[in-house]
């Protein structure tokens, strides 16, 4: 991934920074320029909680190249305490440990190394609590 593209997403990926709409109070993650709920254009920065629960999940058996050495790995849509949902890997557990409604905590992890000479990419993943 070209470095500018990676760098731009760091606030979201490293710190779960989001936008809270000053009009309706709904949170957008990642931040947007216009609130999809009310059309508001004024936001304040907020950080999402690192606590949430699994909405739905799967185990990926066939992955794109950058993740192919990691299969099988589990992916879930997690709803964080603020009601915001994210797609994330669930790690440090077996696929059969996952379940709808199970509580998770968001952690900072390595995602993948970019080829043989590129940067190491980081981001968020979830662990069961």
């Amino acid at each position, binding site marked *: 991934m070209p470095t500018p593209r990676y760098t731009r*997403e760091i606030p*979201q*990926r490293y710190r779960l920074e989001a936008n809270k709409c000053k009009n309706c109070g709904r949170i957008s993650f*990642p931040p947007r320029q216009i609130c*999809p709920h009310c059309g508001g254009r004024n936001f304040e920065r907020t950080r999402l909680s690192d606590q949430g629960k699994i*909405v*739905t*999940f*799967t*185990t*990926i*058996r*066939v*992955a*794109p*190249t950058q*993740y192919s050495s*990691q299969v099988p*790995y589990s*992916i*879930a*849509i997690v709803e964080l305490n603020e009601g915001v*949902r*994210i*797609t*994330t*890997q669930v790690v440090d557990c077996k*696929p059969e440990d996952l379940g*709808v409604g199970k509580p998770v905590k968001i952690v900072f992890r390595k*995602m993948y190394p970019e080829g043989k000479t590129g940067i190491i*990419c980081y*981001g968020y993943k979830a662990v069961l609590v």
Partner: protein
Amino acid sequence: MRDVYIIGVGMTKFGELWGKSLRQIFVEAALSAIDDAGVDHIESMYVGAMTTGLFVGQEHIGALMADYLGSAPVPAVRVESACCSGGMALRMGFFEVASGNSNIVLVGGVEKMTDGADVTAALATAADQEYEVYQGVTFPGLYALIARAHIARFGTTRKQLAAVSVKNHHNGSLNPNAQFQNEVTLDQVINATLVADPLTILDSSPVSDGAACAILVSEEVMKKAKRPAVKIIGSGAATDYLALHQRDDITVLNAVKRSAERAYKMAGIGPEKIDFAEVHDCFSIAELCIVEELGFVEKGKGGPFIEAGNTALDGKIPVNSSGGLKAKGHPVGATGIAQVFEVVEQLRGNADKRQLKDVHIGLTQNMGGSGASSVVHIFKLAE
């Protein structure tokens, strides 16, 4: 708006067409549609394709295809909306004829997926690169997330999902253009290699090459053509959040629902008037959700509805008589037009072994990504 008719359709066989190039398969389908229509020229063309740049390193395919079809200098443009690029190309051609700008328009779709590209990565470009794909999710993965949510919420069973593939493989076995013309059993589907739990390889549409085209004309041209014509009586399209996780209800394909509502409204009919449908079964769970969103059955009841045979060739509302994406194949950009090919052939009574009885109104539903775009068309045999 003027009335718009289809007077010719053509498609290649779908499959791993290693001996043929992107441009060859498109021109093959286009010539077949042109010959079927009996027209001596076209005035404009729209080519649906998802990502020829990633699959074969070729963009600018509107011009390329017009060139190789010997139709330059007609206006030609490529239309992209991920896996519903073909259906959207049809919609563009429909409006061009309806507007009065052209009288004979070729709409087509094409994809060449077996030339060695990283297909999983190429298809994943239809999802949110930064917030879905970066996390390691794949297309089968996204539909698996929908499947698990549908199972948890409505009690849909593994067997009900498998019933979609069993039906579509049966239909494909009767379609000479299908990539897979073999039957499969419930046990085979359920016990096949897992791709993304709970979905197996037999819940998934294959990687395919193929092209399909249709000739859209005005009423005046249709009357002169003196051959069976199909009228497009409804067209609707819609979008949704690109990322699956942002949708309020993971089990609802809202773009499908909204695109269908718009097409029904234009046609002035409801789902009860539809005799048969070709829908976007990229994965078994997709067809199950789509029959719900199209209004063929109440939300959440898709599983039992399909399991009871309602969508079989002899059912209440046959779905994917062609074999669907699952068995016919899914060259992504071509799929939306191949659906039209099936509906036109069924309405004209040319569907041979899989011919449906007493059908007058057919529907196509074509979808992009995990459902962030959808397009629905409704067709009726012209009097």
